[in-house]
């Protein structure tokens, strides 16, 4: 089984969120970057498990970005990916990321393309679906379980008030959510091996430009919390009804 995993670099989950250049750019000063958790913990690890279970195949990761993403890409190799590809481009919107990835993947006959359900910085959840459309493949978002039997994938996903079980023939693009796999911590052997595994840099593809983010803002600071003594807890209901007017 030939698997492609989309890896994105994002600020650490606990990183301070601030902006520069008149709030048009994320301020990355002093920020630690990580592999997007959905890409790493669920998409990549499940890809490795499927390859291990099949006893053959390959796991390739693809990242769209500059040389500053190489350390993040090596982490994917240390966890166990066989090889990595970086498209040397600075995308300004999801469609461009998808177009770069689709341009690479279109003649590679991947059986399975796995992406995290979204990145924790842009939170769009768009790239997987867009890659699927550009490659004319089916796409299942928000998958919490993925099994492959021959050429058929069985996918579970959480829906309001329950779980939906879907079946789809390979090749397919899957958006990975929590539950699909357990995080793997790279061991020393993996980290050493990652140094010599192939990381191929390919030039940017021709992409469209349909707009993008023009400005960021931080949410207004929360006012002070109004404390209610535990013995008068019922007063909370009254305040939510008459003051906050939300119940």
């Amino acid at each position, binding site marked *: 089984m030939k698997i492609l995993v989309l890896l994105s670099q994002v600020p650490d*989950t*606990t990183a301070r*969120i601030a902006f520069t250049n008149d709030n048009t750019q994320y301020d990355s000063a002093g920020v630690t970057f990580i592999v997007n*958790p959905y890409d790493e913990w669920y998409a990549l690890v499940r890809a490795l498990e499927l390859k291990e279970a099949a006893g053959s195949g390959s796991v390739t990761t693809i990242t769209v970005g500059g040389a500053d993403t190489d350390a993040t890409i090596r982490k994917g190799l240390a966890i166990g990916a066989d090889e990595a590809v970086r498209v040397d481009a600075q995308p300004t919107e*999801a*469609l461009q990321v*998808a177009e770069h990835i689709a341009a690479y993947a279109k003649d590679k006959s991947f059986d399975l393309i796995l992406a995290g359900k979204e990145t924790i910085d842009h*939170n*769009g*959840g*768009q*790239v*997987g*679906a*867009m890659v*699927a*459309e*550009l490659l004319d493949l*089916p*796409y*299942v*978002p928000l998958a*919490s379980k993925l099994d492959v039997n021959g050429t058929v994938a*069985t996918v579970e996903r959480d829906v*309001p008030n*329950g*779980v*939906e*079980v*879907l*079946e*789809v023939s390979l090749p*397919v693009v899957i958006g990975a*959510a*929590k539950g699909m796999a357990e995080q793997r911590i790279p061991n020393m052997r993996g980290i050493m091996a990652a140094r010599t595994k192939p990381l191929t840099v390919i030039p940017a593809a021709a992409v*469209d430009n*349909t*707009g*993008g983010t*023009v*400005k*960021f*803002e931080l*949410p207004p600071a*929360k*006012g002070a*919390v*109004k*404390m*209610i003594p*535990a013995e008068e*807890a*019922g007063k*909370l*209901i*009254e305040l939510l*009804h008459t003051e*906050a007017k*939300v*119940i």
Partner: protein
Amino acid sequence: MSTIVFIDTRGEKIPKAAQEAVTYASQLAGGPVTAVTFGGSTLLDSLGAQGAKKVIVARGVATVDGQQLTKLVCDIATKENATTIVCVHDATGKAVAPRVAAHLKAGHVAGAVGLPVDGKFKRNVFSGKAQAWMEVTSPIKVISLSPNSIPIAKGEGTATVEEYSGDLGAARITVKEVRKAGTGIPLPEAEIVVSGGRGMKGPENWAGIEEFAQLLGGATACSRPVADMHWRPHHEHVGQTGLAIRPNCYIAIGISGAIQHLAGVNQSKVIAVINTDPEAPFFKAADYGIVGDAFVVLPKLIEAAKKLNAER
């Protein structure tokens, strides 16, 4: 130039998120719009009240096949000469809207939280820790609306319902089974959410959470450890790795408020926190707080909610 709106009306009842999307599309267009949907609902003409003049429905499609639905939306977009396509930012919309955008080379706003200001759309980024204003410069726009973003219009009028007769091809994704774990209000749509954490001590203590939520007409949710320990089903988990919700009122009982939990609920309009630990980080993000034991506080809240319901 026209506006169409794609909604999911698989069941009989028109979901709240679908009504919001039709309202939003009509407000964007400044007039009536065409709605596109699928499934067997007989209530589609009621969408006239939200601003749909026409509803085009693909009756034969009951699956979640994003490719079929994308074909449906793109086909109608072309026929109607649509320049704005509104979708819902939910499980169905996430499988369709980005595909439509990629197909039509259209800019896509994933999760708009309101009407545009100076042509720019606002959406949440960095897991709700910041917001971004997005501009779309392509001739066609795809706007996915986050649930609970705007009030539903309750106007007059009925929409005409037209059956779609085009060929959407065979479904490549089939639904084998749907395991329902509850029948309550779907969590992403709920305006009031009562959520329990490890402070509830065990799954046997959830009756109080459920009763309280029911009295308020809300849904129940939980923190990650609670879902991981299987005290509650995973679809109830809100937070960074679970669902991100934005109800009017979020009441957290026995949840400390780690940054990962806040990422899923920080867009709630009002947050009330009940925790035994006065140092719990959640109090810093809360509007109302009670330092106290859930087993003492919750019965008082239930009693007060019963009293409120009796009065109104």
